């Protein structure tokens, strides 16, 4: 066999599965701890390697659109794409004429199987959009501001003028949450791993509600004026708000102040979106600009000048960005001049959402719902334990229980979601200080006691001596430099004092000789007292 052993894995592939840099065990003195750390590090590395190797078993390839010479991808219309694609995919492009109750807000479920639409004039419907099977349909007889699908039992949640109501998929009203009756709620946001939704209102209040128990976790006065732009960072569950002065603020439920405040535009913000990995933030403003920011560094990466500022922004799983300008939907791939795809509706667009695990973009318009084909938008290989589009009823129930058990508590939300698995140096230091205060003395670290070994260079005493020598050398170097600096300082001071003396002698006349006499040393100096 010329290729014996395991097939090599590319470093870039491994990089994607790493959770941080390798831990350096070199400086650990405790042998037992060192051994344990090494073994855990090995396990971690092998896990990374195996995960990278597992990519071989991922069966599906993501979609793509390749154009010929002289053909522009943004000029290709949906009909052409649907004709070129296979029949099953072509069926995913459809339009629903809904000219009575619009404009429509839309939302897909977490596994991408069901679609929820809600018309401003009270029409709410949920259906399996692939088979076009209707799950429920009703008119709630009130103005619907926003609809969100919750993952538990395909509940839907509608937002009216005054309150939020929860419905099951059987038209049964579950819960009605009246929180701040005097205010008009403008938008809600459902966080899937927290079973929580955020709502904002015209008085600048951000409210964080736990859906699973129906409690209001926190209400924060953002002091940012009327709020209607909100999105959340799917990577760390931090809520982003867009303000009228062009700033974007980030909020966690456990802090009354924004964790981050950044000025993104010179005019009011119109829309916000953060991608799946929590790396990029897309913003659009009244200044007709669309900007891409790096959320980790809080730095701008790219800026587009458009005809109008997009009113809706949405990232797909594979980082395609959908932006709606009045009645035009534009989809951007990488930062470049032209969009990847465009689509024009008859009337202005109200809402857009990418369908998870499918190459589909749902567009809620003023009088219709359109499902667009966007090749390369969705993640090709799903993880069935995370969200499974093909799950059975039993699997769904089991998953719901598991998901509720793993509900992330509001106090765990912070900018760095991995903070829980890191070493807590701060508390350790505090505990040490407390102990010292309590005990009344500083615990001494054990002094080195040489082991009794008979021969060889590696005698533990000699090793320690050598170590001390190296350690001493650095200290000596440091001391030398310090002394040098001190000497120079002294010399300077002396010179300045000489200058002063020279100035004094200027009045008498002969400066140089006096100065020379002071600086030049004579042989007789040593007898001076």
């Amino acid at each position, binding site marked *: 066999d010329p290729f014996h052993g395991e097939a090599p894995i590319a470093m870039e592939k491994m990089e994607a599965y790493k959770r941080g840099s390798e831990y350096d065990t070199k400086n650990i003195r405790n042998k037992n701890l060192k051994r344990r750390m090494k073994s855990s590090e090995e396990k971690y590395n092998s896990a990374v390697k195996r995960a990278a190797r597992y990519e071989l078993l991922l069966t599906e390839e993501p*979609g793509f659109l390749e154009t010929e010479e002289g053909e522009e991808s943004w000029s290709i219309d949906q009909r052409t794409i649907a004709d070129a694609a296979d029949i099953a995919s072509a069926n995913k492009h459809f339009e629903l004429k809904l000219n009575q109750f619009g404009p429509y807000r839309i939302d897909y479920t977490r596994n991408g199987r069901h679609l929820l639409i809600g018309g401003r004039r009270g029409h709410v419907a949920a259906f399996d959009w692939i088979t076009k099977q209707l799950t429920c349909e009703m008119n709630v007889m009130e103005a619907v501001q926003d609809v969100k699908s919750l993952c538990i039992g395909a509940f839907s949640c509608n937002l009216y003028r005054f309150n939020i109501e929860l419905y099951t998929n059987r038209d049964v009203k579950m819960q009605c949450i009246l929180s701040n009756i005097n205010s008009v709620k403008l938008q809600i946001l459902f966080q899937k791993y927290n079973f929580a939704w955020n709502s904002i209102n015209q008085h600048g209040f951000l409210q964080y509600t736990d859906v699973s128990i129906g409690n209001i976790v926190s209400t924060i006065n953002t002091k940012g004026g009327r709020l209607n732009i909100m999105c959340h960072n799917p990577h760390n569950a931090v809520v982003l708000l867009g303000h009228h002065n062009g700033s974007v603020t980030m909020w966690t439920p456990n802090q009354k102040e924004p964790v981050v405040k950044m000025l993104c535009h010179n005019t009011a913000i119109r829309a916000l979106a953060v991608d799946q990995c929590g790396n990029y933030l897309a913003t659009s403003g009244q200044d007709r600009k669309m900007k891409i920011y790096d959320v980790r560094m809080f730095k701008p990466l790219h800026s587009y000048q458009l005809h109008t500022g997009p009113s809706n922004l949405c990232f797909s799983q594979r980082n395609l960005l959908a932006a709606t300008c009045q009645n035009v939907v534009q989809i951007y791939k990488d930062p470049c001049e032209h969009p990847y795809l465009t689509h024009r509706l008859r009337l202005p667009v109200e809402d857009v959402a990418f369908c998870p695990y499918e190459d589909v973009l749902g567009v809620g318009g003023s009088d219709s719902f359109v499902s667009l084909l966007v090749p390369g938008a969705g993640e090709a290989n799903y993880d069935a334990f995370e969200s499974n589009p093909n799950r059975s009823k039993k699997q769904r129930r089991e998953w719901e229980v598991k998901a509720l058990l793993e*509900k992330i508590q509001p106090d765990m939300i912070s900018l760095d979601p991995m903070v829980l698995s890191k070493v807590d140096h701060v508390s350790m230091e505090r505990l040490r200080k407390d102990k010292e205060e309590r005990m009344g003395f500083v615990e001494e670290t054990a002094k080195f006691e040489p082991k009794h070994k008979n021969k060889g260079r590696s005698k533990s005493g000699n090793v320690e001596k050598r170590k001390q020598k190296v350690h001493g050398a650095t200290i000596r170097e440091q001391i030398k430099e310090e002394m040098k600096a001190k000497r120079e300082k002294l010399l300077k001071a002396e010179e300045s004092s000489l200058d002063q003396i020279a100035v004094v002698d200027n009045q008498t006349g002969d400066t140089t000789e006096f100065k020379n006499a002071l600086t030049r040393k004579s042989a007789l100096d040593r007898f001076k007292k």
Partner: protein
Amino acid sequence: MKVKVLSRNPDDYLRETKRDIHKVFRNYNPVLHPFEAPREYLRALNATKLDRVFAKPFIASLDGHRDGVCCMCRHRKKLSSIFSGSCDGEIRQWNLTNRQCIRTLQGHTGFVRGLTCSADGNMFISVGDDKTIKHWNTDALSEGRDFPINTLVTKSLYTGVDHHWTEATYATCGQTVDIWNLERAEPIRVYKWGMDSVNSVRFNPVETNLCISTVVDRSIRLYDIRAAVPLNKVTLKLKSNVAVWNPMEAYVFTAANEDHNLYTFDMRKLDAAVNVHTDHTDAVLDVDYSPTGREFVSGSYDRSIRIFPVLSSGKSREVYHTKRMQRVFTVRWSADNRYILSGSDETNIRMWKARASEKLGMVTPREKAATVYNDKLKEKFAYHPQVKRIARHRHVPKSIYQAMKEKRLIKESQRKKEQNVRMHSKHGSVPRVVEKKKHIVTFQE
């Protein structure tokens, strides 16, 4: 123009028939698994909580004795068989599988002081307050099952007995330590150290001629039964009731002391204890190692049983007690490492699980995998305050709780006092002595 739109063939993703298992596709890309750390933490927290919910350690009580159970021994070849002796001289053999007494013997008049099983498992030996040593057949169905095979009448009282691990030799302790051969009526060797009597004797399971004894003069002595003089001894501040060998690292032994502590020693270095196990609130009467050698169980006069890990902080992992259990005279860990037996003053032998929340009976592979995963998570997040608090919390009877509080108070005040003395003395005249050396009076190599 070339277009490919994602389209999954349902045949690849759905099972063919209802009898098939569901197809589960995995993708380990971290982007699809957000909130890794908080979710793992919550899983660990839930696992810890469930651990406490399912902690039901008490299995059964073996009742039948008419007086307190003062000694027990395991059958060396059979998992399901144990022997117990009570304060009225009765010896019982039990079947642990159906939790029934299979034989009752009137062994001695007065206490049964010690029981031990022979290396081949055919015979067990009992010593009692009537100054006799009796050899019995372990087979409960043999013909002469009601009578001893052999009875040796001796001059002095014996307090304990232990059988050699390979040879037909056993040792008894009392006024002296006597080494007996099964064929002879007289001891083959007699050890006597001063005027003090000996509490216990145990053979080393690996270096089989090595013995350990605890003596009333507060010392623990090590000796080789082939030699006339003992090897070395260590004297503690108070008397040790029993010392047992670690079956896996047979140079380590643990002594149950009257000062509420247990001391683990390395026999090669007796100047300091390897670990001091403090949690009991009264004298510790018996101790027994798990067959893995990682943990041991101790029974105390404070009416509780505690399980300690050998290494680590010296705090107990678990405490078992019931309302009815009185002073625990004897404890044994079963040879399959799953059960603990305790014999106490109120005539019962109690059977406990060694791991309180372990599921008994058949475990499916999925359950097993889940347990392994949960254990790993618990280990990973063990130091988080929430997890630690839940995992550590144990309910103890009021008497123990008060005693623990009092002990803590005493310890704190002693520490403060020592600190004050040190502060007002000449520098270095009041040295700090570590806990592991504090309780050792002398040691002889």
